[in-house]
């Protein structure tokens, strides 16, 4: 695993998230389930908790964006770059942007939203890319059935190096 240069981390363990918009390619309920499941990947192995908010700025703002979306990192259309996220911090820090032009799904067709979100949330929490091809934080997309997903040890070691182990 690899930590983001400068080792940025959230100062609190109780974080908030907000879903700013939805993709028309999936049902809203399925997007919400994918987000919750992706967050639980990290909260299961750390003391972190995530609370959904709808009416104010959250620590982690999740949105689907198209091409140039005013953050100096434009998306490139279908395939190529799927998503990006910002390291922990104020404002845009922690936010996750997903390329609206990808073929998002809740299963193995196109790109599985849960898998991509889980990876991006790793960045939102302070992890960088791993060079272990089996790790969630490896930069290339690889499909795993969501109900069979287990966070690889490399990623567990990385996130626990930042936030410690789950107290549960």
């Amino acid at each position, binding site marked *: 695993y690899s930590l983001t240069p400068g080792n940025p981390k959230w100062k609190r363990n109780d974080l908030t998230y907000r879903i700013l918009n939805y993709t028309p390619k999936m049902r809203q309920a399925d997007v919400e389930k994918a987000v919750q499941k992706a967050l639980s990947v990290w909260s299961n192995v750390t003391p972190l908790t995530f609370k959904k908010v709808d009416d104010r700025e959250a620590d982690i703002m999740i949105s689907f964006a198209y091409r140039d979306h005013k953050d100096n990192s434009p998306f490139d259309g279908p395939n190529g770059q*799927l998503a990006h996220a910002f390291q922990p911090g104020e404002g845009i820090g922690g936010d996750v942007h997903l390329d609206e032009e990808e073929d998002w799904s809740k299963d193995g067709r196109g790109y599985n939203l849960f898998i991509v979100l889980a990876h991006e949330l790793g960045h939102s929490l302070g992890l960088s*890319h791993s060079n272990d091809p089996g790790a969630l934080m490896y930069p290339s*997309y690889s499909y795993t059935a969501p109900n069979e997903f287990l966070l690889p040890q490399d990623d567990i070691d990385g996130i626990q190096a930042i936030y410690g182990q789950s107290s549960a």
Partner: protein
Amino acid sequence: LPVSPEAEDERKTLQLVESYLQNFYNLQKDQKPHLRTKGDNPIVEKLKEMQAFFGLQVTGKPDLDTLEIMKKSRCGVPDVGE
């Protein structure tokens, strides 16, 4: 005169490599070899860095394995700190 298919393929490969290294390995746009007067080729150096990260043979050349990785869909966050 029409551009030969080989030259066109080579141009596309160079474009892919430059764009990938600019996006994910902080290759600066003004670091293209033809703008430099001396020193190492920054594209080769960044290619070596990328190949080492992915566990590929470190050649500094855009071989088939390297291009295959570059063409895969991926996260848009750079692999190196900015």
